[in-house]
């Protein structure tokens, strides 16, 4: 497979082309099969690439053709073939395939079935190309294409205003991040004269610390946009307006992980960039805690999951900032499994509850949806990081990484604070996860009409859930045991390793840290069970205990409103001022000029008789005169 890696993105592209051209008229429901097969082919080819990965560094770049050449800028359509690519591709194509299968059943009643299966493979194609790119420009192009596809998919139900607004919000918020990202790429080209990864990484030592920091921070702004870090996280919860499989695809496996991947791919730049890692860790830890506190009070099942995703992405950035790079990617993979599971599970619930998303309308669905319930609990346990499920292994490593970074001699004490923030976040994570599970599946049904109609989803939706549940159980222990020396560490160590930080302690510390985090998660689980299952204390009472805090959390800290005031209103005001200047001053000057020209030309226009022959006469006179001058001169 390393001879023809272009086959991997090709098959989703072909699926897109077939579905896009023939889908609406001829294929109709068959587009789902075409799309799924396209992704499956891609997944199988990725496995082929995994088994056939080149061992030598020199073969790890595959150039398909030269895309453009301008001055010293040379861009190839090329692929990076290394372990990081393989891991990302396995996660992306694998989870995407399961989501495609699931969508076949989930979207069954939608009129725009073919359109859905047109954008979905294109999205996966863009993501694959993003992951496989060998230079920043290709990365940027497909980074944008992912954004475009997400725009189409979030706004899939385009006759809903809320969906259109959410799509635009996602698109525009991402533009803010992309601005930083593009500026970072310009700086890279400015400093290195190339945008190829390997050349840039090789030459990283030649630039000053300040330049490297600037580049790293600008790139991180891009990552913040795509991976929904505070304050650019606002698009992600709104993006839940898209169909649930889209939410799963965008927010679990693919799009939001692009930022993590990008930082992971460019570790040398970030390590060279001084304080950038501390900034990354700080923003990650803050976002993790911040989003978790919001998730605690949300009532919309998908919104809880959305804030949970933001929170988990924050943890991944915390890992990257701490230098526990492999842990970040490990968590990326496990998170992809259990978050996709939870999204698809919530999709199954929503599907059976006739598109009701408010958890206060649920309750007691355990018996109605046994399969969904079972897999959902597994996913919830994994998200809460309960031993020995997948989330435990990866999250534990992240927190351990932060602790070691803070505690070690060459580390930074700030990271101990970040560690505590991460611990608090995981407490809240366990709490809101089980709050969600209790509200949805346990207790008495709160809406009888919906409850009576509820039924278990078709097997085509259950099958991906079961597979993901198995992965959520096994992936952590399979890949990450023993801690710091699991399969994934050995595999990725070649491409991602820290030059600066040795994040290991003796085993007693590791074990005690694991016990602490598990204990905290269990506390969260038990608190949720106590409040929402037994009603001791009652949930309403808890809300009234700290009304201000509750409202703050429920209103998402008023970030949207702040943005509205700070960014939108103020831009409008500034725009009004500028408009006034333009309309009065600039236009006035231009009008004055125009008036002057008009005044002068009212004299000059008398020359124009409207007769072509007069014009020709004047022209001929000019010719005769100029020829005459030449004649006389010689």
């Amino acid at each position, binding site marked *: 497979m390393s001879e023809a890696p272009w086959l991997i993105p090709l098959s989703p592209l072909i699926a897109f082309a077939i579905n896009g051209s023939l889908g609406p008229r001829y294929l109709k429901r068959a587009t789902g099969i075409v799309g799924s097969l396209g992704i499956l082919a891609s997944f199988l080819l990725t496995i082929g690439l995994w088994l056939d990965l080149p061992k030598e560094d020199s073969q790890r770049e595959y150039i398909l053709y030269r895309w453009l050449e301008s001055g010293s800028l040379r861009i190839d359509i090329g692929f990076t073939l290394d372990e990081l690519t393989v891991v990302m591709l396995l996660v992306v194509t694998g989870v995407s395939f399961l989501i495609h299968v699931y969508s076949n059943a989930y979207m069954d009643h939608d009129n725009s079935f073919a359109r859905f299966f047109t954008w979905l493979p294109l999205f996966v194609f863009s993501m694959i190309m993003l992951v496989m790119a060998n230079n920043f420009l290709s990365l940027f192009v497909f980074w944008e294409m992912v954004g475009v596809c997400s725009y189409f998919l979030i706004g899939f139900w385009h006759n809903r205003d809320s969906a259109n607004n959410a799509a635009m919000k996602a698109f525009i918020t991402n533009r803010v991040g992309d601005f930083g990202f593009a500026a970072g790429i310009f700086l890279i080209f400015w400093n290195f004269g190339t945008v190829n990864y390997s050349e840039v990484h090789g030459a990283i030592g030649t630039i000053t610390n300040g330049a490297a920091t600037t580049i790293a921070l600008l790139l991180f702004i891009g990552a913040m946009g795509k991976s929904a870090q505070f304050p650019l996280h606002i698009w992600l919860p709104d993006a839940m307006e898209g169909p649930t499989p889209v939410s799963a695809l965008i927010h679990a496996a693919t799009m939001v992980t692009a930022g993590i991947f990008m930082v992971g791919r460019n570790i040398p730049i970030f390590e060279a960039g001084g304080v950038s890692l501390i900034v990354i860790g700080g923003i990650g830890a803050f976002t993790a805690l911040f989003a978790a506190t919001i998730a605690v009070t949300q009532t919309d099942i998908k919104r809880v999951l959305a804030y949970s995703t933001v929170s988990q992405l924050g943890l991944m950035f915390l890992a990257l900032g701490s230098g526990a790079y492999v842990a970040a990617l490990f968590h990326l993979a496990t998170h992809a499994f259990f978050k996709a599971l939870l999204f698809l599970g919530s999709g199954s619930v929503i599907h059976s509850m006739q598109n009701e998303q408010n958890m206060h309308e649920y309750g007691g669905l355990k018996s109605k949806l046994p399969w969904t319930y079972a897999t959902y609990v597994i996913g919830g346990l994994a998200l809460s990081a309960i031993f020995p499920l997948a989330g435990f292994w990866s999250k534990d490593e992240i927190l351990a990484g932060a602790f070691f970074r803070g505690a070690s001699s060459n580390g930074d004490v700030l990271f101990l604070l970040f560690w505590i923030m991460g611990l608090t976040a995981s407490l809240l994570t366990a709490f809101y996860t089980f709050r969600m599970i209790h509200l949805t599946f346990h207790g008495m049904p709160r809406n009888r009409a919906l409850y009576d109609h509820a039924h278990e989803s078709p097997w085509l939706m259950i099958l991906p859930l079961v597979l993901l549940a198995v992965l959520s159980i096994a992936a952590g222990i399979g890949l990450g045991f023993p801690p710091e020396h699991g399969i994934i560490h050995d595999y990725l160590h070649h491409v991602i390793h820290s030059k600066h930080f040795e994040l290991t302690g003796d085993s007693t510390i590791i074990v005690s840290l694991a016990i602490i985090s598990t204990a905290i998660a269990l506390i969260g689980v038990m608190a949720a069970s106590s409040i929402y299952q037994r009603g001791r204390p009652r949930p309403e009472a808890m809300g009234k205990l700290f009304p201000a805090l509750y409202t703050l959390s429920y209103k998402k800290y008023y970030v949207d409103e702040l943005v509205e005031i700070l960014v939108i209103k103020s831009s409008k005001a500034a725009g009004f001022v500028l408009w006034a200047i333009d309309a009065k001053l600039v236009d006035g000057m231009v009008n004055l000029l125009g008036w002057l020209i008009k005044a002068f030309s009212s004299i000059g226009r008398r020359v*124009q*008789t*409207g*007769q*072509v*022959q007069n014009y*020709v*006469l004047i022209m*001929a006179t000019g010719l005769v005169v100029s020829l005459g001058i030449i004649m006389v001169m010689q």
Partner: protein
Amino acid sequence: MADYLNSYLFIGAILFTLGAFGVLVRRNIIVVLLSVELMLQGVNLSLGAFSTFYHDMGGYMLVLLSLAIAAAEAVVGLAILVALSRHVDEFYVDRLKSLRW
């Protein structure tokens, strides 16, 4: 040899001047167009003569291109004439003043 070139160029100059005179003086739009063709004849002759005496194909090529341009010009000019006849039924250049606003 050189004398020949001169005589061809002289004939070309006469034809060109006659054409230019026609364009300036005649009122009938179709005669004006014919005079333009006459100017092109003069130019073609000069180009052909240059080409022959300088042993270069450039002049011949330009004659060919000027043939193409003459054809295009005649076609468009006559189409305008047809359109004129349809709208104003007027073929004297000095009465067509719509260029003046």
